[in-house]
């Protein structure tokens, strides 16, 4: 039994850091992960290549520089970059490869896989390892997901992930999706968890039991919403289960404790607003945007999140957070007058 772990502290964690990772921080984290045997380390703006924007938040240091810093300290780990077609483009992918990226993870909403064809094909021409990311996968059942994953596989994906972007899945949801993917696909299958409902590790284990080949984690869970499955915890639990990961659980515990914890602005956890995100099935990354907008327009963040869920907002629609907050404020004003 084995499973490959990708650590996304330096990509999903970018959300929790408000995209303010410094070169020093990236070197320290990547170095610690590499030494602990993590085979793939993802480094990009939280919303992927070219995510630096008003919509998602500007990067303090360009992701291209951060990729180069991470690559410079890694002896065995491959560096991965995330790319969302519609945000990032082929020229940025090419630059990322020049800076040291060896794996590209191409993400679309879970029903829109056909916007990724060009990116997979070009990635394959560049001899990259390719991973497909079907985001917000709680919104569709196994059949649709398998159909979409097959498209990515046909474009050249080496692995397709079920991505629980909203942290809205329960273990049975993860299990049935991964089982269907394993059944329907020839390529590898992965699972990316968020801990909004407190079952990030539980869902990852359910995915493992259903035959998943790859799992994502981040140190201390540093990621959007309540964060991800914790890499150090995955390492420890999988070790107890006698699953081969190649990870050094002790070193990862140290990396979580002494490297990443001191740089975190807060500990992502299933607090009130994060639980609400999982409960309403909303993109985890909306958390900080919704908190800021709720404060700015003096409304309850839960009303904003609920409305976003009702409007079926998908990954990347951070502009709707402000729009919805303004609508909620108008409604509140209307009710008061």
């Amino acid at each position: 039994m084995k499973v490959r772990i990708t650590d996304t502290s330096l990509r999903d964690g970018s959300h929790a850091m408000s995209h303010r990772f410094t070169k020093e921080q990236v070197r320290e984290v990547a170095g610690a992960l590499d030494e602990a045997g993590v085979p793939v380390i993802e480094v990009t703006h939280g919303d992927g290549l070219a995510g630096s924007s008003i919509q998602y938040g500007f990067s303090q240091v360009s992701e291209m520089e951060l990729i180069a810093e991470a690559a410079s300290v890694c002896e065995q780990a491959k560096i991965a970059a995330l790319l969302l077609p519609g945000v990032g483009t082929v020229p940025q992918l090419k630059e990322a490869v020049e800076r040291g990226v060896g794996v590209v993870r191409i993400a679309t909403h879970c029903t829109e896989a056909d916007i990724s064809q060009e990116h997979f094909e070009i990635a394959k021409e560049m001899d990259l390892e390719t991973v497909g990311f079907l985001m917000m996968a709680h919104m569709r059942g196994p059949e649709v997901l398998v159909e979409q994953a097959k498209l990515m596989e046909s474009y050249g994906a080496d692995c397709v992930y079920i991505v629980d972007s909203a942290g809205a899945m329960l273990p049975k949801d993860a299990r049935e999706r991964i089982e269907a993917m394993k059944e329907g696909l020839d390529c590898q299958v992965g699972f990316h968890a968020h801990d909004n409902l407190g079952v990030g590790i539980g869902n990852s284990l359910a995915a493992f039991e259903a035959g998943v080949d790859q799992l994502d984690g981040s140190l201390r869970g540093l990621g959007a919403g309540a964060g991800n499955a914790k890499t150090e915890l995955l390492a420890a639990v999988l070790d107890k289960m006698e699953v081969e990961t190649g990870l050094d659980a002790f070193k990862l515990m140290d990396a979580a404790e002494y490297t990443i914890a001191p740089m975190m602005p807060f500990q992502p956890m299933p607090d009130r607003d994060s639980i609400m995100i999982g409960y309403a099935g909303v993109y985890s990354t909306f958390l900080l945007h919704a908190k800021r907008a709720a404060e700015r327009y003096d409304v309850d963040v839960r009303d904003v999140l609920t409305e976003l869920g009702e409007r079926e907002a998908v990954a990347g629609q951070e502009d709707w957070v402000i729009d919805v907050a303004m609508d909620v404020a108008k409604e509140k004003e209307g009710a008061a007058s």
Partner: protein
Amino acid sequence: MSEDNKVKVAIVGSGNIGTDLMYKILKEQGHMELAMVAGIEPESEGLKRARDEGIGTTHEGVQPVLDDPEIKIVFEATSAKAHKANAPKYKEAGKIAVDLTPAAQGPYVVPVANLTEHLNEENVNLMTCGAQATTPMAYAVSKVTPVRYAEMVSTVASASAGMGTRQNIDEFTFTTARGLEEIGGAREGKAIIILNPADPPLIMRNTVYVVPEEDEIDEDAITESVETVVAEVQKAVPGYQLKNGPTFDKRDTPWGEKTLVMMFLEVEGAGDFLPKYSGNLDIMTASATKVGEAFSRHLLGVEEVVA
């Protein structure tokens, strides 16, 4: 109005966009006479509908259009690739091309900003739906104060994003970003597109963020300019609406703390042929109709009547 006062035009491409454009041109009481709709499938819905309207059709592609010397203006509603191949042929045949694909062979035109600026060109390009929807907002701010940076985010219903958009999504971001610079007047532009599969399909939404160069800006003047431009766009696209904003906020940017102007738009289509939620396609065909009419007037020497 006598036939002498009209310019013969043709639509190349009988898909969704070509068909919607056909109905818009037929509705327009102006100076265009739709002489031909060209497709490649004789039994296609678009060509059937054209025949039902009594319009000449061909399923032999672009050649019959090129062979008809009476046709002066061609609307390209095929694909960027097809237009790149057709553009030199139109030029050789002495026809003006109004290009609805992102091929960008000619200068960009957005009616509210520069409708009459390129009437002596042989080929003009309408960029992308997102650019038609959002560059007017950057342009409205630019008229008041210089713009350092403009960013747009388009959310389009999955059902109204065709294979052309899906297979060339990078093209959308490049062309739209350039449109924010060239038409919107921003020193730097950025574009993001998101497809949303919600059912019932959502009406096209666009958010425009503008960062002015100056720290001191006249918020009232910007608001007035934005509202004027919105009203102007609404003449051609009645479903073009500012849902929220312009709203002003302070933000940390790569250029220091700046005032950010935000505008939230909804674009509902007229439902001429395409469903109303396809505001993204509607704004293209509405703009193309305006541009075709402007060229026709120009060719006929008819002055624009200022209402």
